[in-house]
């Protein structure tokens, strides 16, 4: 019994590690890609059709590859970056590559919802484009950026279950192993409940922060 408990605890740690480590990189890359797409779009701060088209295409391609396949494609890169083929760490590059375009899309939607008049007002005050981005665009889109983070985190949780296929461990993998291979319903059940709880907690925290900072 205690061996099973240990396994569950270990799987929980792996899931949390994979989710939050990849979330960190995903948010950083996602915001950067989002800003790049936002400023290069037509009528943007640095309008540039070529860059916009190329980045947009890459984002769309990455978004349309099923995660399970993307993971296999990314294996060589993962090995190069993390020095291993297996384990929770090795799953992070593919998780980040899968989730960043997803979050980047949400960032663009969030940025485009920022009142154009407000941005114009700051331009009229003499703000540089850099100031407009970090003093106006980000704070004014923060609630949407944060609810995007919690949505992305939730998708990452379910991606980590699939990452089990490359031996990353985690709760999803545990549930799969015990549920389908060893027919141990208790472990299956507990792993599933834990995943549901993680998702609920992420959602709750996200909603709470959004509620606190949204002064509209």
């Amino acid at each position, binding site marked *: 019994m205690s061996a099973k408990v240990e396994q569950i605890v270990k799987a929980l740690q792996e899931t949390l590690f994979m989710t939050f480590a990849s979330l960190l990189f995903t948010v950083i890359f996602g915001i950067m890609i989002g800003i790049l797409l936002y400023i290069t779009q037509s009528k943007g701060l640095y309008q540039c059709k070529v860059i916009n088209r190329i980045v947009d295409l890459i984002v769309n391609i990455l978004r349309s590859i099923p995660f399970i396949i993307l993971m296999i494609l990314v294996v060589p890169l993962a090995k190069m970056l993390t020095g291993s083929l297996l384990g929770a760490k090795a799953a992070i590059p593919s998780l980040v590559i899968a989730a960043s375009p997803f979050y980047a899309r949400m960032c663009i939607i969030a940025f485009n919802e920022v009142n154009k*008049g407000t941005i114009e*007002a700051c331009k009229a005050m*003499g*703000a540089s484009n850099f100031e407009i981005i970090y003093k*106006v665009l980000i704070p004014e889109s923060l609630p949407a950026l944060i609810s995007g983070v919690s949505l992305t985190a939730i998708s990452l949780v379910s991606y980590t279950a699939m990452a089990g296929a490359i031996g990353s461990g985690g709760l999803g993998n545990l549930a799969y192993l015990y549920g389908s291979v060893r027919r141990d319903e208790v472990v299956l059940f507990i792993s599933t409940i834990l995943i549901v709880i993680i998702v609920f907690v992420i959602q709750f925290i996200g909603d709470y922060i959004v509620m606190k900072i949204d002064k509209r």
Partner: protein
Amino acid sequence: MIELKNVSKIYHTPNQIIRAVDDVSLTIKDHEIFGIIGFSGAGKSTVIRLINQLETQTSGEVYIDGVNMKELSLKQLAKKRIKIGMIFQHFNLMWSKTVFQNIELALEIANVKKEDRKEKVMKLIQLVGLIGKEYSYPSQLSGGQKQRVGIARALANDPDILLCDEATSALDPQTTFAILDLLNDINHKLGITIVMITHQMEVVSKICHRVAVMSEGKVIEEGSVQDIFQHPKHEITKVFVSSVSSTSEVSDLMTSLKKMYPTGHIIRLNFTGDISNKAILANVMKHTGVEISIINANITSSQQGPIGILYCHITEAFCNQLDVVVNHLKQEGVIVEVL
């Protein structure tokens, strides 16, 4: 001084070419309140946005204090903009910042040191009458209060010019007058040049010194507010001038007056400035013996004194003396129109 020289702005949309501003030349003097009036789509916003180069002209030159705006680098332009405040119809405040922070942002952009900002922001809050609202968010303010924040923010870096794009159009009449009073005050106290865009003649009559009338991208008439009221030349200007009388439904008023007075003549008298104070009508009645009854009256105050529009009726019995009356009134400096 702001000078626009043969400025045009052409927008190319997929299915048409729009001449938003068409060969406009204007000179706006220091310390004056200059109005630009016109219907929606006339090109007013485009003109005001050309002044601080939020839009760049397709052709022509924009000079501010002799500096050709299109020759400035991005950095120089940003620096110049710090000295040109702007306020908007929909205020355009940051909802994520408090009143204090919204105003402070303007100082931050101008690289004012943190220690100096607080005092300056509090001064501005006092100037626009928002004491006690420092830590409120825009969503907790009324429209008039939001515009006061907008004004404080625009004045933060002691600009020489304040651009107002329909600054009172989203406000109720009472709030409009309060904001206009504030702007007038600022113009008097600080000597800031104000460019006022509006589609409301009341706004022009209340605070502007000079006004340009725009239509279809062109300036069709320009002059002192008094001149424009006394001698409106263009049809559109006449519509704006007559709109000051009662509601803007002048034609409605006309039909109803015609119904009430089916016989005789209705004349419209336009008084401006000091002549409003004389007992002109009484004199005319005494001299000609014609009975003139006032059937509708409207007086607006302006920078150059009151502007009055009277609708009068002359009964059929005196019809043959109509010309005499009209001439008499004209000699007194009244603008007369027989309707």
